[in-house]
């Protein structure tokens, strides 16, 4: 697995508060990676470090083989859509494309024009008068037309209404399918990630709780309902991620590479959301077992 983003013991401190500490993770190349975690997990800090907006206090981070924000060549390799998708309110849509064209060595003017047309944006419209959804689309267009190797999206839909949110994510999915690029997309909502991502990283308190291919994760995890039993008495090869006991029954989320075959048990597939929440609420990191 080649990594498009590689962090080792990465840390960022603001005065006395660590926003991110001892973060070690690999983002595989060529995937659309969803980065989920509760608020304050360090997602924005991690992505800002990857975009070169912040410099690490500790550890190292490498993006597309270089130091983030080191020079123009490095900046050209990474497309960055920041939180709340900022655009210049007084500049028109056409101005934003012109800005991208002037600053990006690999600017794809055709792609930019096409996207603006398809999205139905008027090119003489000021960005300040666009709806939140349109502004996010414009920011995404500028980032995509840079033809980056890695596209970073920091909660791009956090401020959007449900409809605009869905439109944006569908457009993002189509766009990433057309271009050969790696994507890291952060959100605190698993449903957003589920629409577009094929790889999941769960970040809790700067640590990776879970990382893996979405389909693989769903295939190896099962919700098991069984008569009350002691988790310690489980057969080998089964790992309990979370367990919920009532007087007579036990409901568990288990991970197994071989499948679950006790006839006394009822098994059912797990949703990505339940899976993620189970790992997020865990107190002990289990990601090591999944590497």
């Amino acid at each position, binding site marked *: 697995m080649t990594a498009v983003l590689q962090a080792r013991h990465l840390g960022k401190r603001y005065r006395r508060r660590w926003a991110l500490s001892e973060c070690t993770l690999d983002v595989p190349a060529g995937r659309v990676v969803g980065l989920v975690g509760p608020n304050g997990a360090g997602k924005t800090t991690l992505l800002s470090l990857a975009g070169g*907006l912040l410099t690490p206090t500790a550890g190292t981070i490498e993006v597309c083989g270089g130091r983030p924000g080191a020079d123009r060549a490095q900046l050209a390799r990474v497309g960055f859509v920041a939180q709340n998708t900022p655009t210049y309110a007084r500049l028109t849509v056409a101005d934003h494309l012109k800005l991208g064209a002037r600053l990006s060595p690999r600017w794809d003017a055709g792609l930019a024009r096409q996207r603006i047309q398809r999205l139905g944006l008027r090119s003489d419209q000021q960005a300040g008068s666009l709806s939140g959804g349109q502004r996010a689309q414009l920011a995404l267009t500028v980032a995509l037309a840079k033809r980056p190797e890695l596209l970073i999206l920091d909660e791009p839909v956090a401020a959007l209404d449900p409809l605009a949110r869905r439109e944006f994510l569908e457009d993002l999915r189509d766009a990433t399918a057309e271009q050969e690029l790696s994507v890291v997309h952060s959100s605190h909502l698993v449903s957003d990630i589920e629409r577009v991502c094929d790889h999941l990283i769960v970040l809790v308190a700067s640590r990776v709780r879970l990382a893996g291919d979405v389909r693989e994760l769903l295939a190896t995890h099962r919700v098991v309902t069984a008569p009350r039993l002691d988790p310690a008495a489980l057969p080998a090869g089964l790992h309990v991620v979370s367990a919920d006991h009532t007087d007579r029954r036990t409901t568990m989320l288990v991970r197994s590479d071989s499948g679950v075959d006790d006839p006394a048990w009822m098994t059912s597939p797990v949703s990505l959301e339940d899976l993620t929440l189970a790992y997020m609420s865990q107190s002990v990191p289990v990601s090591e077992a999944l590497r």
Partner: protein
Amino acid sequence: MIWLTWRQFRTQATVAFGAVVVILAALAATGPHLAHLQQTRGDRFLDGIGGLETNLYLGTVLALLVLPALIGMFWGAPLVTRELDAGTHRLAWTMTTRTRWLVAKLGLIGLAAMAASGLLGLAVTWWAGPIDKAIAARNGAPGPGFLLFPRLAPEVFDSRGIVPIGYAAFFFVLGVTIGILVRRTLPAMAILGVLFVAIQITMSMAVRPHLTAPERITTTISSHNMLNINMFDHVTVTIDEPGAWLAAQQTVDAAGRPAAVPSWFVDCVGRSEQERQACFAKLAHLGYRQQVTYHPAGSFWSIQRNETALYLGLTLLLAGFGAWWIRRLSR
């Protein structure tokens, strides 16, 4: 990057240069008449200056006095903070390096500020030339109305010659740098305003007198050259140097030590002309003299040049510091 800067700045630039053009037009329309008056009226020229010209004279002096503060507050301070507030720095700084971004902004807007101030400063210097010359010819005695100061005097110096160029560059970059440091627009504007007043006063009182070597002269105090005695019994005189800036003066006694004039002399000033003459003669006989440190009118351009160079040098240092600091900014 220059394109983006221009695109963001062009409205403000149009307004500013529009105002400059209006002022230049007013000066061009009234300047020749002023020069004509000076030639035909001679000594009575200053008394005959009309309301329009007086207003223009005062207006341009005031405008050029506060212009650097306005540039620093409205072009400088918000330059970076506005982007931080809107989050657009995340768009810009992930597309181009912060250094290039800042250099383009400082370069283009700084040059515009310098051009506007320089144009105004030189135009006003030309327009007010006849008035400045007539005031200088009064040899230290204040002119009528508001036409009081020679152009080397601190009240007028800032609005003449090429120093407005240096001020514009310096206070623009100072505003930007304060913005980078405090990261909020209104506090940055307020800090710049306070610093502007402090720096300009320090400059005219403490630094400018040393920008060229001053001349010194020791003269007797006479009824011709004495201007006034203040409440601390300090005497002020004029010297026979048209348009000179009297930076400092001090009464000395026969031994050459700094001294106040004797109290009998102070009492004597209000008396009849004959008695006054006797007082002045007695003062001179006792060996009291006035030591005057001054810059002759001929030093005007060398002081202008040195002060402008000083401000431009500080501007470059400040810009370097700002560029270094903005790279450390964690936003």
